[in-house]
């Protein structure tokens, strides 16, 4: 049961923004490219300097050690980061990829040979294995085939329902936004507005 609340959030030239995503709620954010949707997520996860108040379960971001904050507020970037050669080196030894449609052998796979879809699913598995209390997703299914899109949407929904986690989902696909989210917001000109 978690709730993320931003009040008067400002970053770069944008804001102030108020945002409230409750337990188990999925809110989609749409908007023209270059409008700063990614920057909004980066500010929420405290990866960019920002002003205003962001709280998770009433705990202010400013008073939480930054790495602890980012463990609670899990952000899936549009492009996942891989720094070692094999998949297994990127996750704790007890993480199970079975639920994500991989054979146990996946740990020894070379990162350089993964497809875009596999990478994204593994990145999601890696993020969710750290049990974030809240999810920020930056176009998690961009450039994936329809099969992978469906899989990822299902995995995310399962996690959200199981952990009652608030989810903020940046998407450019209107159909997807209304499919996965109960509310759709538009981010444009530095303002976040309820879409009609």
């Amino acid at each position: 049961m978690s709730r993320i609340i931003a009040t008067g959030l400002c970053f770069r030239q944008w804001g102030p923004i108020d945002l409230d995503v409750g337990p188990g709620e999925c809110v989609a954010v749409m908007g023209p490219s270059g409008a700063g949707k990614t920057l909004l997520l980066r500010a929420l996860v405290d990866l960019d300097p920002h002003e205003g108040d962001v709280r998770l379960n009433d705990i202010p971001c400013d008073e939480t050690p930054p790495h602890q904050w980012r463990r609670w507020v899990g952000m899936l970037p549009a492009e996942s980061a891989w720094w070692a050669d094999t998949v297994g080196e990127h996750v704790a030894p007890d993480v199970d990829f079975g639920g994500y449609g991989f054979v146990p052998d996946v740990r020894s796979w070379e990162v350089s040979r993964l497809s875009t879809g596999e990478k994204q699913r593994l990145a999601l598995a890696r993020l969710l294995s750290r049990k974030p209390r809240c999810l920020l997703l930056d176009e998690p299914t961009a450039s994936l085939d329809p099969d992978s899109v469906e899989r990822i949407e299902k995995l995310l929904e399962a996690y959200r329902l199981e952990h009652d986690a608030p989810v903020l989902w940046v998407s450019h696909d209107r159909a997807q936004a209304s499919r996965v989210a109960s509310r759709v917001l538009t981010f444009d000109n530095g303002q976040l507005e309820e879409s009609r």
Partner: protein
Amino acid sequence: MISLTPLDLVLAATLLVALATVSYLSQLGIHKQLLVASVRTTVQLLLVGVVLRALFATSHIGWVALVGLVMLVVAGREVLARQRRGLAGLWGFSVGALSMFVSSFSVAVFALLLVIDAAPWYQPQYAIPLLGMLLGNTMNGVALGMGRLTEASHQERGTIEGRLLLGQTRVEATSHLRLDAIRTGMVPIMNAMAAAGIVSLPGMMTGQILAGSPPVEAIKYQILIMFLIASGTGFGVVVSVGLTARRLFDERERLRLDRLR
């Protein structure tokens, strides 16, 4: 010891003139640089000769310290100049100079006090060449290490931030880059130690032998210098890479590439 006359040096200079002529005729385009560099070497070394002669004559610790400080400042500027993307502002200079100060000076003082044991310990005949060799090599390593780290941080921003997003600390998120930078900074001295005596005869030892020292004496000094340089470079690189990595993040563990030039 066979003393060199100015004529001997002129003879050696004719080789450079010959090379410059070849460069000019075959349009290699290095003759100008070559001549400028030769003149610089001559003038700089002659000036140093004058300074060293005066310094050896006074032997006052204040003068030795002043010369050491000038060397440090010049080395700090050189470290900055050799990096394509150093830390912006005073940091680029300070981090380099501080790490060289910490490593080169402490190793030099260690060697002067405990190993060479001259009287007084700061006797410029030992202190200045030792510090010069330490600074020169540490400078090389520090510039390589810092340059590597800043360049890699710039290129691998996505990876570093991806690791931060997984809840890693700034130390964890840059571990692979810091290791790589430290190794890079250590490569020249490691190679020099591995090849010493077999492929190359180190310059200092060669000079001593040419000047008439018994080979074994020269070699003992060379081994000492190698050890000092390796440890000085190692500490210098570790400190400079650590400080640079620290400066690349702010108090909220955000990667701040705007702090690079």
